[in-house]
């Protein structure tokens, strides 16, 4: 499986600067880079592949399933050329999104196109937030907020020019507990940036909200039945619809309580279940974060409790 990391961030956040810096590191030079906006940048790298955006509607007909088919085509073409020895054997793919992009369709493309999903694995979503304009941009532009809400980690750029602490506060208001660091001129540690995404679980039971957007933490001390968890996620997808942006965390299943199951969904699209070898920090309990807009804060927990009770008596 070829790991794919998505680098996103609003216009001028410093995505290209970051990628140039990363590619200049010999340990990371074996990365293929796909720029999701044709002509936006011209990275001097032999593996650069630019893809022109083409939107197509797939069978489910919902907006978040409009996929950028050329991204999938580009990834598969690169993989074919890699296998044929036509390009160096890159070890990972970095996708740079358009500054105005909602990353969700890109993540959906990576997760739903069968050929891509069989050969590539979405590793992480890295979002850049500019310390100078970031807080204002996050306030004014929903695309910028989606970029933060879908991130596994955030890099605050230009901390030497702006208020990095304010930028971090704005980020944490959207996704509390998120791993946020600052770096000048793209000097971030790639191993941190592109590490596999791990659930960021806030410590607060209910997070701060911004314009109806916020995160909700679901915790369970006792293991949850797999059926209850599945029915809960289905009901959430059904009733929250587009209001549910992301769901991630670790679940202790009654059927397999010794190791945590990674729960990861972008809107209604769920990653196949994965298991960690052991519980991080020894905390054996379910902790799932929902990031959404306009979801009543107690609804997910009440729904899960109702479904658990029902499953227990079935």
């Amino acid at each position, binding site marked *: 499986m070829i790991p794919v990391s998505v680098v996103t961030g609003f216009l001028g956040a410093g995505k290209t600067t970051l990628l140039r810096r990363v590619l200049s590191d010999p340990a990371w030079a074996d990365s293929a880079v796909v720029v999701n906006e044709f002509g936006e940048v011209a990275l001097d790298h032999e593996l650069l592949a630019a893809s022109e955006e083409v939107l197509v509607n797939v069978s*489910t007909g*919902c907006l978040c399933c409009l996929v950028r088919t050329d991204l999938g085509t580009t990834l598969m073409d690169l993989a074919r050329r890699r296998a044929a020895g036509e390009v160096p054997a890159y070890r990972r793919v970095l996708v740079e999104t358009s500054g105005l992009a909602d990353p969700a369709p890109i993540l959906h493309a990576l*997760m*739903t196109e*069968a050929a891509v*999903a*069989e050969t590539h694995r979405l590793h992480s979503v890295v979002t850049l937030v500019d310390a100078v304009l970031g807080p204002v941009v996050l306030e004014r532009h929903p695309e910028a907020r989606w970029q933060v809400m879908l991130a596994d980690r955030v890099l605050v750029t230009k901390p030497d020019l702006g208020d990095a602490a304010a930028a971090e506060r704005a980020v944490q208001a959207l996704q509390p507990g998120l791993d946020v660091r600052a770096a000048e001129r793209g000097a971030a540690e790639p191993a941190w940036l592109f590490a596999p995404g791990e659930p960021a679980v806030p410590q607060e039971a209910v997070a701060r909200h911004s314009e109806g957007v916020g995160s909700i933490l679901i915790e369970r001390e006792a293991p949850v039945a797999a059926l209850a968890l*599945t*029915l809960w*996620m*289905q*009901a959430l*997808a*059904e*009733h*929250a*619809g*587009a*209001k549910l942006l992301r769901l991630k965390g670790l679940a202790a299943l009654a059927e397999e309580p010794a190791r945590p199951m990674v729960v990861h*969904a972008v*809107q*209604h*699209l*769920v*990653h*196949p279940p994965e298991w960690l070898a052991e519980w991080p920090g020894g905390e054996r309990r379910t902790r799932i974060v929902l990031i959404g807009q*306009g*979801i*009543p804060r*107690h*609804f997910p927990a*009440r*729904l899960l*409790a*109702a*479904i658990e*009770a*029902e499953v227990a008596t079935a």
Partner: protein
Amino acid sequence: MTPPELRDLLADALVLWEVAGRVAVAEGGVVLEGLGLRVVAADGDELPIRWWIERPGHRRPCTSISGLLRGLRNAVGAGEGEARRLRVAGA
């Protein structure tokens, strides 16, 4: 599930569906005030039916909380709305 728990869950659901209304505990279940609906817990010997959605002259059985929410959503006219089916990546 107690009537107050059902009331709280359904009140949240109305907010989520953006439907105006108030939910109150009533005998055997809850009423959705202003919507002409009542939800009553089924008797134990009615299994697999767990809930009844009642409106004047009509009674609909529901076998699960998911079914109850779906039935109510249709009954209050919120329809499918932005409803989505869970989908597994790569499947």
